[in-house]
């Protein structure tokens, strides 16, 4: 409840003490607006005001689209004489529809080809072992991270890896430190 002016919530409006004990037969007072709540309200108002300011250019664009040209220079948001004339003009000559088709076509083809080819590349690098895989993979990774000599690249799960079951014997070896063997029974 960032807005302090809405104490309708029975849980928070004070039918219980802060420690959760019910107070029988006692109707507790509404919580006061504490400085913290004022702070929250002010924060909310500033953020909401900022958001409204952000969309004002879009709102003006929308409002002007319903205005006749003589009213365009008026600051009113609600047109005095609303009109669909501008929409009829834009949609009327057919060029707009062909532009819309061009945009839709480009967006669709780009999205489909991205999804298709990116998943092909991702799948190939993840699941196939082949000569040159390292170069392609490092080429892509280098655009994301600065790779240093000695960096280890681990991807996916190597074949043969699975859950530990009874009877398995786990062997660990670190050069210069020693060996470790654990038998699972």
């Amino acid at each position, binding site marked *: 409840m960032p807005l302090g002016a809405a104490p309708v919530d029975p849980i928070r409006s004070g039918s219980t003490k802060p420690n959760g004990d019910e107070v029988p037969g006692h109707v507790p007072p509404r919580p006061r607006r504490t400085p913290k709540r004022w702070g929250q309200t002010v*924060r*909310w108002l500033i*953020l*909401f005001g*900022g958001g409204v300011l*952000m969309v004002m250019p879009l709102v003006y*664009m929308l409002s002007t689209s319903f205005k006749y040209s003589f009213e365009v220079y008026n600051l009113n948001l609600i047109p005095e004489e609303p009109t669909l004339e501008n929409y009829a003009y834009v949609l009327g000559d057919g060029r707009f529809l062909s532009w819309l088709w061009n945009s839709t076509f480009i967006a669709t083809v780009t999205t489909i080809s991205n999804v298709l080819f990116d998943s092909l590349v991702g799948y*190939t690098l993840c699941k196939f072992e*082949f000569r*040159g895989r390292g170069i392609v993979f490092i080429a892509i990774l280098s655009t994301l991270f600065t790779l240093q000599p000695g960096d280890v690249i681990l991807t996916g799960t190597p074949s043969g890896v699975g859950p530990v079951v009874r009877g398995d014997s786990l062997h660990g070896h670190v050069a210069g430190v020693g060996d470790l063997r654990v038998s699972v029974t």
Partner: protein
Amino acid sequence: MSLYGGLPLASKRVVWAWGFLAIPIVFYTVVRFYPTANAALISFQDWNLLGERTWTGLDNYRTLFADPVFWKVLGNTFKYLLLGTPFSLILAFLIAWQLDKVRFLHGTIRALYFLPFMTSAVAMAWVWRWFYQPVPIGTFNNLLASFGIQQIAFLNSTTNALPAILAPAVWAGLGFQVIIFMAGLRAIPKTYYEAARIDGVSSWTIMTEITLPLLKPTIVFLVVFSSIGFLRIFDQVFNMTTNNPGGPLNSTKPLVLMIYDTAFNSFDMGYAAAQTVVLFVILLVVSLLQLRIMRERS
């Protein structure tokens, strides 16, 4: 068919792997790497798009570095970068930081900030251009007039035009930066804040010792991306100054617009390519510098 069928299994997998990779590799080579290399080559040549390409060596670069317009334009480009990036990132961080604490209508407010990002830069440049016009037309000056305040020449002034063009660019990008900052803030484990609260740490220390250090990957990403964006600014400038692109008196012209002018109005492809190479080098150096500085700070 028999050629493929006779291959061992491992080789078949190799065929499939390179088959899957083939189209993106061909695409990148033809559409990205070849034109890039070609642009670098043309920058050492003289070419008007139709005639012969003649080798001129470093002539284009010599002309460029002796051109006062180039230095003016380079200054403008860095003004866009140095004003736009810090201003928009600090604003976006403050909004994201506060919005993260808001629950009531959280999604609605976030949507309000994000909406400008979804609009077309070209269309919005024209709307803002209309806002900036002198009195009977422009919204801002009409508002000022209704309060009895003196008119401001936004796009017609050599000093005001650049910030006036930068404003819609910052405005359009803000929503994206807010969303990314919020994602970064959400990714910080709450346990750090709880521990800090138990220890009675001041909110300033929480900000400088917990929030900002843990937000560093997000900040690095946004600084690099928005810097590249501001260094490549074009749509807003071109559309808000169409009668005299980059004007008044080249005061708003960024490097990309100079490249566009040289290539498609003067048809001096070699000179334009040299400018492109310089822009590429600047983008590369700025990005690498930022990555290095931001990484070292940890």
